């Protein structure tokens, strides 16, 4: 299975773990992630304005590059995924944006959202299959109670992201089960941790992150997992509570027995 891969800027710097454990795990599962040759940072938040083209271009370039390679485009960071997927949706549905982008980029043929953007978790669920994943697990994480933290960006807006039921998701719980661990279900798994406020008003980020972690801990979590570098930072640095937070790719690599070599 060959996929184009958009790692994102944070995975090249502070979130190297998210990337390197993903690559090691993919290799162990026989998935080839081909990094796009010339991607640029997506900007981190989806630009909602209808009259703005410039802020969407880095995403369009990545989407177009995957289209040229003829591959689906895999993302790892929740934020990149949200931005690329929402911009791709604009390109599939908003004729005005399609035309402006085509003119600006001097495209012979307009880009119309043909590339399929999939998060690595979706690839594990739909491409590999959780039953198949289970067969590759050599070190099951037996007895570990893991609270999946979805946050905002993987799920919302649900109609565009189509990742899972935005109010009652199951993908991360099923992922945790496939690794042999025990998922902790808690109410705040899809409520915002306030990460974006960390630069603007730290007190907000501290309050929101603590509420999420408290809720996970109260339901017995020994560990939390996330796909978002900002959530990981916020839950680790701004929350009171001390539950360890890891990238989902780290526990994956561990269960697949490739963590040491990653």
């Amino acid at each position, binding site marked *: 299975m060959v996929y184009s891969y958009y790692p*994102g*800027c*944070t995975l090249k*710097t*502070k*979130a190297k773990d998210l990337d390197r454990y993903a690559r090691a795990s993919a290799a162990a599962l026989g998935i080839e992630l081909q990094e796009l040759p010339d991607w640029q*940072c997506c*900007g*981190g*938040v989806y*630009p*909602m*304005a*209808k*009259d*703005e083209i410039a*802020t969407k271009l880095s995403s369009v370039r990545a989407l177009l590059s995957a289209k040229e390679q003829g591959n689906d485009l895999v993302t790892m*960071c929740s*934020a990149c995924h949200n931005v690329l997927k929402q911009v791709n949706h604009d390109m599939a549905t908003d004729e005005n944006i399609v035309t402006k982008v085509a003119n600006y980029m001097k495209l012979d043929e307009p880009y119309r959202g043909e590339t399929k953007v999939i998060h690595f978790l979706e690839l594990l669920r739909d491409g590999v299959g959780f039953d198949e994943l289970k067969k590759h697990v050599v070190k099951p994480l037996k007895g570990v109670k893991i609270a999946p933290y979805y946050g*905002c960006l993987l*799920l*919302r*807006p*649900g109609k565009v992201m189509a990742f899972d039921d*935005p*109010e009652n998701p199951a993908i991360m719980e099923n992922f945790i089960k496939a690794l042999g661990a025990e998922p902790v279900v808690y109410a705040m798994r899809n*409520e*915002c941790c*306030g*990460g*974006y*406020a*960390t*630069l*603007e*008003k730290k007190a*907000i980020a501290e309050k*929101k992150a603590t509420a999420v972690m408290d809720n996970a801990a109260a339901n017995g979590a020994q560990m939390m997992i996330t796909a978002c*570098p*900002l959530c*990981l*930072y916020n839950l*680790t*640095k701004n929350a009171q509570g001390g539950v360890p937070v890891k990238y989902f790719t780290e526990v994956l690599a561990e269960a697949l027995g490739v963590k040491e070599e990653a």
Partner: protein
Amino acid sequence: MENTNLKERILEISGVNPRKCMKCGKCSGTCPNYDEMEYHPHQFVSMVEKGDIEPLMKAESLWTCLSCFACVERCPRSVEPAKLIEAVRLAVIRQQGANHLKPQDIPDKLDEDLPQQAIVSAFRKYTK
């Protein structure tokens, strides 16, 4: 105070139709940052509809909205209040010299674990 031009511009930037709103308040009920916003998402909707936009342009809420899309997801009428908030924010920062975040403010806020994503996102949201 009614300001028709500004209203038109906000509607155009956001693509939102505030008249779809049935004033159920669900967006504000679900907003994780309700306590920190002096104008709540349902008020953005009703005030833009009335053309009462200047107070929103001065609101702290523009900078404390978390862009979490909860109000977008949970509105029964698909009004998408967060898009209105972004449009008002843009109407502010597109004015010359009105950037909310200055590059010189950044170094003080950094710590060694802060992901690039936080900085990139803040610039995307708060500057032009």
